[in-house]
């Protein structure tokens, strides 16, 4: 038990921070908001030289095989710089291929990810925004040696930039619950695919992607047809935990800008940071962000240890959704009118923190999962000891009468 970062972890963080401080200015972030691809290829290439894309991928495919916690630390710095890099989407998809893909699939895709040549993304959500298997209706009909994919995915990250997209679909009619789901690796340039960029508060690159009779070879199926839910659930959990890290990095930097402003800005004959009303807002901000960080590190650490982690991920995301946004809201209040102005960079952080809190599970969804684990299974709960079961996002079967 030592929840502080090790020297090596501190070093990874410092390296990432100083790299992005040098390479990713707010001007670049603004420029990429208006760019159709949304990321600077030069920066992406440099990130690959630092080994970021392959940080937690297996060494067999050129990765560094580091624990997920390390990737979390890097994504925290990406969030801190609000760096316009498709790292989260690429990492989430690549980790899923590494976990559940065949050797041939790993060999075909992962070395390109590590080198920075291949960008990945993944697609789950459709009309129903909830992260539960029933929300997936998109069908993949078997046809000869492949599948024909039709339907529509929403909120797909970095689709325009991506080469491949992991698509969660139904290869069998929904049997209720998690049955019948499959995971396909789809070429983003395949015939029959069209995408519409969404206009988001974060001004990031999310798309609605329409699949019109898209043919996918059977060789691009991950794992066994109809049995993808456990893999997908782990993908969603990793994605949520890593997004928490990114969100916390952004919230920490956003808060620091408010602290600095409070020290410098004078009103009523004082730096406003001398007023306790401001000081107490600031202290709450750092307490919230620290709390979110501890929850997130614990979730990532449990994944690395191969321990059940669903409840811990939901704890982290529910908390970060509320507290990172509350902190960013305080930062806006502390800045007063100028914080509302486009010319100040603060909104680059606020807009993303707010948006990330709406993605990969809302506060209510994640709390419902925690509540189910706490309440719906017999036996007393003890804080710090495992809850009876780390249930899936959908309501688990009730075992209490």
């Amino acid at each position, binding site marked *: *038990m*030592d*929840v*502080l*970062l*090790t020297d090596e*972890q501190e070093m990874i963080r410092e390296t990432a921070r100083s790299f992005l401080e040098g390479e990713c200015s707010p001007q670049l972030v603004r420029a990429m908001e208006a760019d159709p691809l949304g990321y600077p290829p030069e920066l992406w290439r440099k990130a690959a030289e630092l080994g970021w894309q392959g940080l937690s991928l297996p060494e067999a495919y050129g990765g560094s095989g580091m624990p997920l*916690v390390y990737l979390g630390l890097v994504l925290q710095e990406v969030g801190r710089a609000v760096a316009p890099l498709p790292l989260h989407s690429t990492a989430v998809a690549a980790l899923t291929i590494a976990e559940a893909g065949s050797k041939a699939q790993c060999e075909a895709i992962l070395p390109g990810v590590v080198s920075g040549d291949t960008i990945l993304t993944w697609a789950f959500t459709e009309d129903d925004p909830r992260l539960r298997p029933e929300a997936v209706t998109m069908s993949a009909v078997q046809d000869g040696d492949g599948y024909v994919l039709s339907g529509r995915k929403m909120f797909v990250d970095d689709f325009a930039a991506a080469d491949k997209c992991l698509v969660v679909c139904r290869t069998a009619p929904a049997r209720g619950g998690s049955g019948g789901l499959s995971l396909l690796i789809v070429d983003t340039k395949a015939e029959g695919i069209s995408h519409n960029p969404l206009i988001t508060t974060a001004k990031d690159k999310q798309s609605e992607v329409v699949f019109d009779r898209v043919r996918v070879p059977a060789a691009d199926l991950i794992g066994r047809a109809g049995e993808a839910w456990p893999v997908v659930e782990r993908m969603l959990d990793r994605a949520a935990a890593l997004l928490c890290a990114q969100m916390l990095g952004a919230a920490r930097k956003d808060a620091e800008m408010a*602290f600095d402003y*409070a*020290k410098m800005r004078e009103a009523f*004959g*004082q*730096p406003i*940071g*001398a*007023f*306790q009303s*401001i*000081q*107490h807002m*600031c*202290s*709450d901000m*750092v*307490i919230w962000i*620290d*709390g979110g960080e*501890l*929850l997130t*590190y*614990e979730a990532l*650490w*449990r994944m690395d*240890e191969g321990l059940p982690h669903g409840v811990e991920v939901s*704890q982290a995301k*529910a*908390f970060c959704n509320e507290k990172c946004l509350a902190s960013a809201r305080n930062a806006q209040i502390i800045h007063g009118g100028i914080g509302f102005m486009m010319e100040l960079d603060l909104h680059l952080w606020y807009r993303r923190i707010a948006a990330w809190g709406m993605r990969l599970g809302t506060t*209510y969804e*994640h*709390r*419902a999962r*925690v*509540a*189910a684990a*706490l*309440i*719906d299974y*017999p036996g*007393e*709960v*003890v*804080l*710090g000891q495992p809850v009876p079961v780390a249930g899936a996002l959908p309501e688990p079967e009730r075992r*209490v009468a």
Partner: protein
Amino acid sequence: MNFGYTPEQEALRREVNAFIAEHVTPEVLHDKEAQDDQMHGSGVADPFGPNMRELYGKLQARGWLGIAYPKEYGGQGGDRISQYIVEEAFMRVGLNISLSGSGAPAIMAAGTEEQKRYYIPRLISREITFALGFTEPHAGADLANIRCRATRDGDHFVINGQKIYTTSGHLSSHIYLMARTDPSLPKREGLSIFIFPMDTPGITVRPLWSIQNNPRAPLGTTYGEARTNETFFDNVRVHESTLLGGENKGWKVAADGLNLDRVGAFRYVMSIRRDEDMVNWVKTTELEGYADNPAIRDKVAELWIEAQVCRLMTMRSMSIVQRGRDFTYEGSAEKVWAPEHGVRTTEAITQMLGPYGQLLRGSPHAVEEGVFAHNVLGAFQSGVNHGGVTIMRDQVARRGLGLPAMRRPKAAAN
């Protein structure tokens, strides 16, 4: 970064729980209740009780007291986490065997070799207990503003003044006193800490009754104490060897000591016990619809997540202590989050219980011996005592974030 326990630590936890099941008997708990009665009453000669004394003997024999303290001072020379594991298990049955709030961490940090050799073993065995003599009626949270004077007289000091909220002062063998030794210095620089016996001539203890006093709360449910005291010092003569950390060094000794005193199982378990009670009540109540009520489920999960943050902040503080680092703001952050969380949980569950939430222990139909009603009367006290949450927020902002102090208005020109 490691959020797990070693197999040895897990084995220790199982061993401690098995020990508790066997040895923390109703007789021991009776002694603890009697001890609480004395705390809440006038005090008697032996506040410990024969069964409790016997339990302490067994704990001592197993090496479970003061695990992380060095062997030469009566500890076990073990690790802080193991000590925490033992303390947490006992806190969960309402027994605080920890040295949190005992003064021991401050003596380890600032004491002379002689003081450590004398006090630490006796604090571990509970032969010596301290009442904390910090604040005064006019000072409140503005601790640097105290007036209690210790005037040097050769190699002695003569103490005059009044302390308030000297909880357990009527039972404690010793007092840990902050007094002003040099009024000519700036406020924080002229203060010193003294440690000496309560039976030193010239000390008078008078009771102050809190709103929690009657009827007594069940074991381990109160945040504050039912009885506290005001203590008067009338020409109390103490030798200079009773100084802790040196003359005029009291502010730093106290601040470091308070931070260290808060770390550990005691405050953590206080702040989260009601979360467990709440969940376990919701899932076992025979009242229809509680476990399915979406509003209750959402609130329960929200509070549970907050409680996890209490746990993790405790782990962070332990990690800092274990690495031998100093706190900048982490102890203060924990002392804001945990007490306020405890209040939120208490208030939420009383909203689930409705009118039954009012019923104190001893009342017909009291729920869970009235623990929640008692908490309503006392949970907020944890946000007031030992450095209130407003002061703690000041410390996070100033020490943690470097926010500036208020500029003093200029004196009027004349």
